């Protein structure tokens, strides 16, 4: 089998707030292999956000081992972590986190601004446009974030996450701010990307959304409680067709 994209061994994270030690994650061993589509589920306080921050190289484990694409993240300094985030990880957030008053295409170009060595500007623009077309927003490239709907903003965020061809796409409650139909559309994009070989890890607390993934990891109190393949996996294309049919029926009635 190929190198896992993510390999966590006895990962622990302890926060010290004042005198109290908070054990957010207390010993997680987990491997995510190329081409997987994993949902990490859990209630708030289960440690899933800490997991996400660590997987995204925004934070380092207190103890344990964390290999990202074979690189031991524990030994890296701030700058090296920044470079990892730039090259190997694409982030999608709940609140989209686009730069306001900045056009879609410029938002997508943002990671390339920090890529070393820098690409020529023309190539940056080409790649950003390609990423936007991939999420179906090629015609909205010049719209600023505020001129786009929530679903469109999240698609721009996905394009931004993809533009540097990362090894891993990380999504933190990507459908949290979206209505159900748009949520399914976003999951459809993730499924299509996964079918093309992209490894995706996604944090969610919605069971319906987790059913679009291939594997579900459930966390509670800083530990993994279950880790199994998705039962009754949903396909976004089918669900959307289903929704359309229902809507038609309502209109006819």
């Amino acid at each position, binding site marked *: 089998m190929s190198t896992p994209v993510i390999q966590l061994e006895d990962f622990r994270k302890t926060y010290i707030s004042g005198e109290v030690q908070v054990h957010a994650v207390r010993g997680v061993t987990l491997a995510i292999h190329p081409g997987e589509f994993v949902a990490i589920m859990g209630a708030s306080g289960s440690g899933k956000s800490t997991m996400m*921050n660590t997987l*995204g190289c*925004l*934070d380092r484990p207190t103890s344990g081992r964390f290999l990202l694409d074979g690189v031991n993240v524990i030994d890296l300094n*701030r*700058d090296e972590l*920044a*470079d*990892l*985030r*730039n*090259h190997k990880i694409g*982030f999608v*957030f709940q609140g989209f*986190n*686009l*730069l306001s*008053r900045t056009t879609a295409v410029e938002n997508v170009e*943002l*990671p390339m*601004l*920090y*890529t070393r060595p820098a690409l020529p*500007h023309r190539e940056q623009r080409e790649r950003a446009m390609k990423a936007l077309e991939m999420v179906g927003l090629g015609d909205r490239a010049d719209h600023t974030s505020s001129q786009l709907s929530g679903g469109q903003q999240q698609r721009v965020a996905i394009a*931004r996450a993809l533009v*540097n061809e990362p090894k891993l796409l990380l999504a933190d409650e990507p459908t949290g701010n979206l209505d159900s139909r748009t949520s399914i559309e976003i999951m459809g994009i993730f499924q299509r990307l996964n079918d093309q070989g992209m490894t995706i890890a996604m944090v969610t607390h919605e069971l319906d959304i987790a059913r679009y993934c291939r594997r579900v990891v459930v966390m509670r109190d800083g530990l993994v409680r279950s880790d199994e393949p998705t039962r009754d996996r949903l396909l976004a294309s089918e669900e959307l067709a289903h929704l359309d049919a229902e809507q038609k029926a309502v209109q006819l009635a």
Partner: protein
Amino acid sequence: MIAVLKIALRALRRNILRSFLTMLGIIVGISAVIVGVSMGTGAKAEVDKRIASMGQNLLTVLSGNMSRGGVRGGFGTSPNLNPSDYEAIRKEVAGITAASPEVRTSGQIAAGNQNTSVQVSGVSAEYLAARSWNVQSGDNFTETDVRNANKVCLLGATTAKTLFGENIDPVGQVIRIKSAPFTVVGWLEAKGSGSFGQDQDDVILVPYTSVMKRLSGDTRFRSIFVQAESPEAIPDVQQQITELLRQRHQITADKDDDFMVRTQQETSDFFNANNRIMTILIGFFAGISLVVGGIGIMNIMLVSVTERTREIGIRLAVGARGRDVLRQFLTEAVLLSITGGALGIATGYWLAPLLTKFAGFPTLISQTSVLLAFTVSAIIGIVFGFFPALKAARLDPIDALRYE
């Protein structure tokens, strides 16, 4: 780099009024520097011009410095330069091309039905040469005129105008100085203002012997002009005259000179000392204003960093290093300060001529001061922008992303 500049420009444009108000401190400070320095250089240029108009390589021997009972009268208060001192300087000092004593008197001057009161200077025939002065009509008086104390005179341009009217050649006319008739032999070229701002053309030059014998009865000179043959010869000539006069006046080694030999450089230094104090004072206030402006920039950059914490978080999350963020905010601060600097320079260029026009103050904007002002404003941006930029660069990406 261009991308960084574009981001900074956009961020500043987004808060255009705030950016402008922030720059105001720098604008005021830099324009004060430009105007202040231009006043200094302008005044110096004016002084140098006037001193140069006195003549080239000129030394002035001033009599006086008499002290009586501990009270010094100042130079020129007690004429103690004898005609023999003047003769001695002419004969014994090497490296001089011209020399002339000066005795002054004033009195009623009349020509026809016009009369006026003008300063009458008694000088030698070499006076015009020493002061690089020419006649526009007629001739200088001669050594013979001096020897015989002839009643001849040269009219300054202003005096000629007063007595005879504009553009009328006075040569050959007779004027009365204190009722003594003097024949006008030469009409002097206009020379403009002197080092004290006085009109150098409102003068009548007559042989010094004529003044002493026929007009005032003075027997001593208040000053002697000496022209050295070259700028390099000036210190040596100054030294020779000092030694000669000390010896002639029998001044022992423990006593001060009872005269003074002043070069044009010293005159220039004397006037420019005041200018320098003024320039330093203006520079000091401009400096304070620049520091205040810099603090303004720091303040607004700190606000900007706080406002844009989330943006910083996003940038860090997609792979910006700390130094990328640092560079971005530093660029913004420097852009603010150098734009302020440029506007300040423009304001200075606009203000300086106004100052000359309405306050009559000579100004001259030097390229050095512009370059200096620009550099200073860039440095202010770097110095005062660094702390806020560092604060931004050190943000924790997780905290920054969570910031509302």
